[in-house]
């Protein structure tokens, strides 16, 4: 591998890691610790990472077949046709809005922990409005900046965890928490929740700079990102358990701030708050921008009313799509903060991600049958039966997470999202036709 390729690979791995690295992940870890306060969490993260890594091999093969294509929409359309692809694309876009809601909730919690005296819904709404305004101005984080930020973040978070683990018994009088008798029941649901920690690693697939990038660089950047995230979150959990061996009465939705405070008092608190905001920068804006570009592309394709593809010229900013995604995210943020439904929303996002990866693994298998002649610069080395088993595993995880969720509104949110996606994907033509009719009549 030449230096140029190595730099490119680091960029892709950093983008993939940065897209998944978010402060809401720490809120989810805190909730995982409420279910099982022990090292089982690290095992669940490891399982989730392994399954995601195996799915990444299928995603890589698909990305090589359709380089630069907007992922899920193209892959599923080729494998299963327009209707199914459209439905899952809208569910996926809805999931991004849910994650935005959870992320803004976590941001509001950080701001509150720092003593900012505004109500959480206001803080969350302010965050969403700021990001939408930035997007409408066309301000995006350059990929180079994102790479540097991610490297700094991973090093800093891992460094803090190692520092905590190195404190030993002088500060920590007890040993690491033990595994509870409920571990067998808890492991599947914890693994389902841990999938949330890896959401977004696949967003690197449309970003290849050259056709050759899809042979090795893009395919291996995703497993690399998953390994980095596993180390980061795994060490964090172990560090947290090490310095707080028993259930901490002050366990919050921002455990990273708690860890920082225990280690370095106020300095640690501010340091972790600063790192958390940086982590948000690597994923939040890019996630919303990516979703709005996907919505714009679907509208340009003619599957949504034309106004959804409105551009502000000459900067070419898809403002209608940004406003739609922004409005949805704002509702999600208010829902999360007003009703404290962030966990239910995070679990729904994890379920949708499991179903999406399931669909992608199956899409890859199906495309091998219906488009065998298509060039595949990267081929998933796993036997078909193993790939099929991975798909079954994703289905089982999704169902278990849905069924065993203690939060009452998980199923409700999930059903609401699916229904909304069905309505949007089925009725778009009717709406388009009506608008077209009105326009024609005016002319």
């Amino acid at each position: 591998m030449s230096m140029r390729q190595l730099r490119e690979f680091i960029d892709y791995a950093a983008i993939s890691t940065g897209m998944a690295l978010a402060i809401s992940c720490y809120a989810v870890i805190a909730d995982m610790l409420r279910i099982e306060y022990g090292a089982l969490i690290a095992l669940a993260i490891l399982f989730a990472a392994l399954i995601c890594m195996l799915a990444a091999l299928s995603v890589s093969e698909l990305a090589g077949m359709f380089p630069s294509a907007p992922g899920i929409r193209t892959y599923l359309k080729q494998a299963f046709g327009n209707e199914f692809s459209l439905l899952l694309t809208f569910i996926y876009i809805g999931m991004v809005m849910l994650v935005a809601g959870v992320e803004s909730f976590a941001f509001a919690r950080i701001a509150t922990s720092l003593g900012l005296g505004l109500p959480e819904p206001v803080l969350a709404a302010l965050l969403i409005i700021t990001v939408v305004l930035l997007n409408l101005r066309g301000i995006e984080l350059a990929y180079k900046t994102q790479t540097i930020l991610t490297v700094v973040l991973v090093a800093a978070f891992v460094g803090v965890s190692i520092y905590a683990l190195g404190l030993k018994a002088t500060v920590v009088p007890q040993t690491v928490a033990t595994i509870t008798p409920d571990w067998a029941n808890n492991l599947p649901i914890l693994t389902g929740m841990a999938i949330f920690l890896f959401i977004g690693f696949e967003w690197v697939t449309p970003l290849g700079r050259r056709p050759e990038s899809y042979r090795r660089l893009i395919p291996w950047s995703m497993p690399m990102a998953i390994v980095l995230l596993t180390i980061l979150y795994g060490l964090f959990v172990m560090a947290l358990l090490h310095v707080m061996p028993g259930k901490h009465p002050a366990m919050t939705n921002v455990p990273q701030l708690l860890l920082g405070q225990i280690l370095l008092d106020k300095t640690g608190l501010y340091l972790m708050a600063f790192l958390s905001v940086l982590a948000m920068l690597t994923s939040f804006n890019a996630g919303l921008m990516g979703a709005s570009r996907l919505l714009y592309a679907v509208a340009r394709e003619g599957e949504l009313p034309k106004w959804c593809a409105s551009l502000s010229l000459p900067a070419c900013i898809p403002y209608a799509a940004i406003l739609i995604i922004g409005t949805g995210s704002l509702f999600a943020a208010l829902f999360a903060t007003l009703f404290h439904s962030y966990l239910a929303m995070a679990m729904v996002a994890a379920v949708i991600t499991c179903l999406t990866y399931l669909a992608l693994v199956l899409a890859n298998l199906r495309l091998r049958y219906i488009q065998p002649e298509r060039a595949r610069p990267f081929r998933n080395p796993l036997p078909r039966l193993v790939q099929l088993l991975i798909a079954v595993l994703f289905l089982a995880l999704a169902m278990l997470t849905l069924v065993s969720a203690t939060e009452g509104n998980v199923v409700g949110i999930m059903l609401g999202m699916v229904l909304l996606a069905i309505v949007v994907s089925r009725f778009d033509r009717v709406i388009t036709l009506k608008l077209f009719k009105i326009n024609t009549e005016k002319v």
Partner: protein
Amino acid sequence: MNNLQHNLHKFIGDVNDMPRMRSLLKGWEPQVVIQASDSEEQYSFNVNDSYLSELGTSNDEYPHTIILRARQDILNKVFCGELNPARAHLDGELDVFGSDKDEVKLDAISLILWGI
């Protein structure tokens, strides 16, 4: 001159003749490389001062390069306005190696030029 070359020449001429393109292309100066995936054909043009240059050879060291790659028949349809490039891209028929902003800019050119 083959079909693709002819369509690209016409495309460049049409874009340069359209006054509305000046503001759209302002401040955007990439090298656009067009590659036919089913033949060895490759063409390139630059955007300079809101105008497209004539076809030439590509420069590997150019700091801002966009690569468009597809079968020759797809490229022909895209560059004569018969095929919506956004649809071709979503269908996996047209690969666009560039930033999101580049993709939307190229899409806007086709929208203004042909209304598709």
